[in-house]
């Protein structure tokens, strides 16, 4: 069987108006012009756990040409119920490193830079610079504040999501947008939300991650309506989606 095309080959095919076989099923929605934008884009994913694993998988299959993945954690057994990159074979492995291996196995066209470290005020500017959009796949408020501050400084939009139990919330935070930043600045007794009690079952991160990646696609291709200034809240147990104006 013929091997899929290389990135250069895909780029030249797309530039000539042809959809490479790898992306053929994207033709009716993303289209050749949109696919070319995705392949030329750079997306940073901060966190490669519950949300991040699904986000990275979808971005690789969509053909985002350049990925940066940042995560200082290693997989343990409690991750196996929901984190796509967690498997018996990756136990103990750093999550960003495991992401690079997974992406290479799915789509070698994607250039991935993985950083096995936490995002900090010191390294955020350097690690995130040059991204077209950043995906917030973090699991605590303090790291999110660091991410949003750095993204504002760099003038890069952030696709925010947070999950707990069967519920989740998603928004696109533009550099000038203060609403989600203000939400995350509110004083809280803990650095985590009610997920500390509810936990995180498998379906919630998958749904939230798919919604985040769709925001990435819309932002990069310039199509559809993005969740800027809005927060989409869902409760899978109640089959409920609420769109809130922030």
């Amino acid at each position: 069987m013929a091997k899929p095309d290389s990135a250069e080959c895909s780029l030249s095919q797309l530039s000539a108006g042809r959809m490479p076989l790898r992306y053929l099923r994207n033709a009716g929605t993303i289209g050749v012009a949109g696919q070319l934008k995705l392949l030329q884009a750079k997306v940073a994913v901060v966190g490669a756990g519950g949300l991040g694993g699904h986000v990275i998988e979808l971005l690789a299959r969509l053909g985002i040409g350049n990925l940066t993945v940042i995560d200082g954690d290693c997989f343990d057994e409690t991750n196996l119920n929901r984190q796509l990159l967690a498997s018996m074979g990756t136990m103990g492995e750093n999550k960003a490193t495991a992401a690079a291996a997974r992406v290479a196995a799915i789509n070698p066209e994607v250039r991935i830079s993985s950083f096995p470290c936490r995002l900090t005020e010191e390294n955020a500017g350097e690690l995130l610079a040059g991204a077209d959009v950043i995906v917030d796949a973090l699991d605590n408020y303090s790291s999110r504040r660091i991410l949003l501050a750095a993204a504002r400084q760099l003038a890069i939009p952030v696709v925010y999501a947070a999950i707990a139990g069967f519920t989740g919330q998603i928004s696109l935070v533009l550099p000038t947008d203060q609403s989600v930043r203000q939400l995350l600045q509110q004083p809280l007794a803990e650095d985590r939300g009610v997920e500390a009690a509810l936990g995180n079952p498998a379906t919630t991160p998958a749904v939230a991650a798919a919604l985040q990646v769709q925001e990435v696609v819309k932002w990069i291709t310039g199509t559809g309506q993005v969740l800027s200034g809005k927060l989409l809240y869902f409760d899978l147990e109640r089959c409920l989606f609420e769109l809130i104006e922030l």
Partner: protein
Amino acid sequence: MNVEVRLYATLREHAPPESPAGVFTATIPDGSDLAALLAVLAIDPAKVHLRMVNGVSAEWETVLNENDRVGLFPPIGGG
């Protein structure tokens, strides 16, 4: 006056027993704000992170009107 209250996730435990889904009507004095509604519902404000009135994010001082739809969400931060 009556307002429709929607409690989400863990806040549903504060709903009346006959409304386990967390959606119910609350009767409050005219001119009440969100903070006053919370006192009537006996919910600790520290448990509420996001407040919504008629689909728009609101403050504790937001004054409510008849038949307003109020949504209260706890903090969620998992990933």
